[in-house]
């Protein structure tokens, strides 16, 4: 599965927000958005990744950019995960149908039935500005890649 390419208009998708409402392609309009796809809430590696991103939130959001984290966990699990860590990054659930939105972005890891580790930056017009797919789910993208992606987009 290939990650969604730059200049692609993000197709229709639907994710669940923690408050029970839906997050769709329409929510990407009007601001630059970073989507962080990660495999599982509460897995040790994912925990480290989101904590490091939290440390860099001032730099990531300096110009009004918004960041979300996406996994195939249910919203209840994601909320518990976020609150447990003290991580403020809003979670978006790709739980049912499982991985459907992640597949739209090319960020689903079929062999394990989970979200792959990927980063997608979407512009305020809903077009992809920059994307990154890790070689494997165990390959964690550093926050430097997000900063590089924002600078390049």
């Amino acid at each position: 599965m290939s990650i969604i390419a730059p200049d692609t208009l993000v197709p229709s998708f639907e994710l669940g927000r923690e408050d029970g409402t839906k997050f769709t392609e329409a929510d990407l309009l009007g601001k630059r958005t970073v989507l962080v796809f990660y495999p599982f809430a509460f897995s040790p590696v994912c925990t480290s990744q989101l904590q490091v991103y939290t440390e860099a939130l001032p730099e990531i959001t300096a110009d009004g950019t918004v960041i979300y984290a996406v996994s195939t966990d249910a919203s209840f699990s994601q909320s518990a995960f976020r609150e447990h860590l003290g991580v403020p990054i809003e979670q978006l659930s790709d739980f049912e149908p499982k991985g459907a939105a992640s597949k739209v972005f090319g960020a689903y890891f079929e062999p394990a039935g989970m979200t792959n580790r990927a980063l997608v930056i979407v512009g305020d017009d809903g077009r992809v500005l920059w994307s990154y797919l890790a070689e494997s789910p165990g390959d964690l993208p550093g926050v430097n890649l997000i900063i590089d992606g924002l600078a390049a987009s």
Partner: protein
Amino acid sequence: MRDLSSLPVGPVDSDDHVRGTAGDALIVYAEFSCPECAVAAERIRASDRSVCFRHFALESRSALAVKLAIASESAARQGMFWEFHDSLFADQGRLDDPHLWQRCELLGIDLDRFEADRRDPLLADKVASQATAAMRAGATGAPSFVVSGSLQQDFPA
């Protein structure tokens, strides 16, 4: 605002804490409240390889991490970095201030000077700059090891 764009970590320099002389020092980014970092420190000691310790202390990971990193730098001003490093990793269940004072007493660290140095903003700056350097090099957790110029979380062979 910090520059967090990609940049490889720098080589060992005179500002680093280095122990041992066997070959090139293994650069480790770690923090003192992290159990995995304690295990890595023990494995390094058992291997007799030389090591360079750098701080990867983030508030978002541990409420104690930055405070302990600064305390270790304060101990370093009295030439006791590695003694303090070993003491912290040897007992991670006792990391609050009274425990740190007790460690100072046991190690022969002047407590008044230790407390004064902990408040020196230069030490906080050093700890923060090392965390920034680690993030610029792609660190996503602790411990991280520099192997062939790149950071990895697997303990190096």
